[in-house]
């Protein structure tokens, strides 16, 4: 008796699960989630590629802004001033439409234009973080390296860099998280990222998908925060 009862319960449970699955698969919730994942892919792609290019470029800009050759230093500082001082949304518009409007050139593909803008913009912010990190290393360490007969590059790569990375992780993490949310701006040039996808449902009378996108950002940034925390722990090779 108990056995049959159990079987009946088992069957009804799997039925219920199957019904639930069907309901989910046919629901607008499922459709919306799929569409948002499509947008999320673009967002993540932009995020990863931006970091890939802007982290090294930031270091180059940082060296430029610390260069002993005055004109170069001022040129670099002016670029950093323009890039940090003007709205990112405007920069996206200028990079995408600018070449066509000013010179009649062919346009970059939309995603590429967005990427170029983000790389330049974030490289400028990163360059300042690098600069802060470099300047926080006591002068004495450079002098000690010099006394030991190390070249400038050796001092930087073998002594300064490790301490530098450790010190810049928290401010960098800040920028990474801002970057995730800034990717939403690229919809001004019709790059179909996650907010665009969310907004497209407004035409179908659904408002919740737009707000539902926040869940995706929160999860993404949550994972990012965990990764940064892990990385920081890994860098615990010496007490600072």
């Amino acid at each position, binding site marked *: 008796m108990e056995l049959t009862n159990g079987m009946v319960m088992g069957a009804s449970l799997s039925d219920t699960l199957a019904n639930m699955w069907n309901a989910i698969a046919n629901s607008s919730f499922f459709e919306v989630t799929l569409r948002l994942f499509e947008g999320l892919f673009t967002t993540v792609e932009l995020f990863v590629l931006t970091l890939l290019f802007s982290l090294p470029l930031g270091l180059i800009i940082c060296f430029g802004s610390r260069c002993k050759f005055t004109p170069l230093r001022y040129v670099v500082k002016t670029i950093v001033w323009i890039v940090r001082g003007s709205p990112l949304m405007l920069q996206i518009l200028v990079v995408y*439409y600018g070449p066509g409007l*000013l010179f009649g050139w062919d346009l970059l593909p939309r995603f590429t234009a967005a990427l170029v803008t983000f790389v330049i913009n974030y490289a400028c912010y990163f360059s300042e973080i690098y600069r802060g990190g470099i300047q926080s290393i006591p002068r004495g360490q450079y002098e000690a390296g010099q006394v030991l007969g190390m070249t400038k590059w050796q001092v930087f790569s073998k002594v300064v860099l490790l301490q530098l990375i450790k010190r810049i992780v928290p401010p960098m993490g800040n920028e990474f998280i801002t970057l995730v949310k800034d990717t939403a701006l690229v919809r001004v*040039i019709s790059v179909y990222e996650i907010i665009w996808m969310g907004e*497209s449902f*407004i035409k179908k009378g659904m*408002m919740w998908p737009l707000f539902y996108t926040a869940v995706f950002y929160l999860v993404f940034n949550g994972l990012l925060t965990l990764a940064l925390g892990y990385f920081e722990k890994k860098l615990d090779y010496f007490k600072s």
Partner: protein
Amino acid sequence: MKKIALLLALLLAVSVCFMGCTTGNNVTGTDKVADVDYVKGNGKLIVGITDFAPMDYKDADGNWIGFDADMAKAFAKYLGVEAEFVEINWDNKAMELETKAIDVVWNGMTITDEVKGLMGVGTAYCKNMQVVVMKADKVNDYKTIDSLKDLDFAVENGSAGAAALDALSIKYTAVDTQAKALMEVKSGSVDACVIDLLMAGAMTGEGTSYADLAAGIAVTDEEEEYGVGFRKNSDLIDEFNKFWTASLADGSVETTAQKYNIAKNIIK
């Protein structure tokens, strides 16, 4: 002091650069732009649209359909190329055209003086009006223009609806699409919005996305017309006009319009 001087010099240099840039680009004159060859060379006609039922919207499989979408496909076929649809940010339509990001704006665009200043426009093909949309249970209380004066409005930035409200000196909140204006009404943040009659017909009322909203009175006396936008002086305009005359004659405009239930609005 030296540094400040240097900084000022740099500023000057940068601003001169910018000024140099902005003066060089004004293409004027009446020479035809050889767009037909350009489009044929590309093998595709890039059509700038927004999601706007019943003119351009997606079917269940994600293909663009609608009166405008179908006619754009027919026009591309007439030119011997493929139609490619790009969903654009409506605010940027003139820039999209001028920079050749798209070749044509074909999205139930009301012909206004502003539009005519920004682009070349083909023959007007469809009649339109600006109507008030509000919650269905309130719509019958507002039958005159005067009764609208105390309502809070949302309307698409730079649209014909915004112009109509300006003319009536009714204040409004500008939003970036007509769909957002509908959302404002649905969410209750404003009392009413002003959108295209055709869109109101397709998107409000029973069986639609916005079942609890309804279209009320028109806010303009004069009828407006829809047109297709091209680059200024583009030779595509002549091709389009020829194509349209032929399509009116062979009945394909009428058939397509009936399919999307807008036959009574078509200009014959």
